């Protein structure tokens, strides 16, 4: 039983993102006024204050940084060690995720990764990332 793991309380900002994950689509926002992409979801563009609409991201990204978590928060200790990463989506925004299916020696800043949706506790579907098929070392 791991029912106390943190889970998102969906609201008007975040619901389309979490619904998108359930549909295996990585939904981010796009500014109608300045054409920049935005994550996390919000109600005004942080670049220009303009209105935002939703767009499906490609799911391709590059690792900006990562940490291998050994001493995990209490609800996550059964998963440790695991890799929490920040990835830069090819559309621009940065997103926190976990990297999976990545051997220790391949783990590095700049690694090309792609989204993979997996079910998680609390009836969530979460956007994990894994090394892209095109990344060095893929398929070995």
């Amino acid at each position, binding site marked *: 039983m791991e029912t106390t793991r943190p889970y998102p309380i969906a609201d008007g900002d975040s619901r389309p993102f979490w619904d998108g994950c359930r549909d295996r689509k990585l939904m981010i926002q796009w500014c109608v006024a300045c054409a920049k992409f935005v994550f996390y979801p919000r109600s005004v563009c942080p670049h220009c204050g303009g209105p935002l609409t939703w767009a499906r991201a490609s799911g391709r990204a590059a690792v900006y940084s990562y940490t291998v978590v050994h001493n995990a928060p209490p609800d996550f200790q059964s998963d440790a060690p695991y890799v*929490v990463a920040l990835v830069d989506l090819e559309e621009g925004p940065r997103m926190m995720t976990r990297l999976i299916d990545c051997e220790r020696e391949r783990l590095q800043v*700049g690694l090309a990764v792609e989204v993979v949706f997996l079910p998680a506790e609390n009836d969530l579907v979460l956007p994990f990332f894994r090394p892209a098929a095109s990344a060095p070392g893929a398929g070995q």
Partner: protein
Amino acid sequence: MKTAAAAIVGVAESDLGEVGPDRSELQLQAQAAVAALADAGLELSDVDGVLSASVTTSTPNVQVADYLGIQAGFTDGTNIGGASFVSHLGHASMAIAAGHCKVALITYGSTQRSSRSQSRGRSGGVRGSEQYEQVWGMPTPIGAYALAATRHMSLYGTTSEQLAEVAVATRKWAAMNPKAFKHDLITIDDVVGSPFVAEPLHRLDCCLVTDGGGAVIVAAADRLAAVRKPPVWVLGHGESHTHDRISSMPDLTVTPAAISGPKAMAMAGVTHDDIDVAEIYDSFTITVLLTLESLGFCKPGESGAFVSGQRTAPGGDFPMNTQGGGLSYCHPGMFGIFTLIEAARQLRGESGARQVAGARIALAHGTGGVLSSAATAVLGVT
């Protein structure tokens, strides 16, 4: 040496370390406040400004004032995490310059060790921008600092041994401070050989978890006649925050010290070479390296080399965190007030065995959140 509108005239800690289950945050703050007033030679009835921040309550300034019987004419509960108290010093100085108060009391207290209230993550439903991080099992705050460390290492080749230099040097200062929680000397091998918490940060790259409190008395220039000790002038101050979540930090190797530091130094009219002693918030070893770069003590990427060879240790040419820091002296949840207390003592020549000879100008710097906020103060004695 220029003077200023306001000066630190009294400082004190409460009991530190592990104070036991019968002590409250308010008790620790009251103990420190009374001691700091005695240090200044002032009375509770002199205080007309109250500033505080807390991990556990949203109105600590109001509660502290009530507990001590103070009816405040200036109040500030700004909470930007561990940097709060250095920012409070700037706010107190501005309030004094504007005539809103004459004697300001800044306090902090925490019983997080005895109450075992410290946590590394959230449970249950999470709202707002935090929800996109907490679902991953992100340990808070260390995971964010680990991400910054990985980025710095990848960009600049910074090593775990260079991070460890800070922990080793800071412990040497703590060994000379009877109030420090840890006194046993450690080696670089001890640090890099201690267990990983979140790579690349080891247990000994992390600050302590202790109880403790502190108080700082700030007085207007025209109230100094009543004060017992030489004033420690607030020559310059600056503050900033650049993000809340680590995912929103524009560049994980540049902290908001890059905004707060130049403001404080320009206001004080000093350059880096003028700083005799630096008290740099050390929640983690990486916090110090990034802050030194963002404050401009060295160029981007050069902080690992800057701290190498025990340069920040006793006898080194960049004396830093001279009370033993959050890494080895105390770290009761938020550390900022302790940077001010030690900076003031160094400038008064009261630091005993760890006194930096001839210190006239000190820089105190707080960092809060996940490298989110920063506040810098430049202090000086005539």
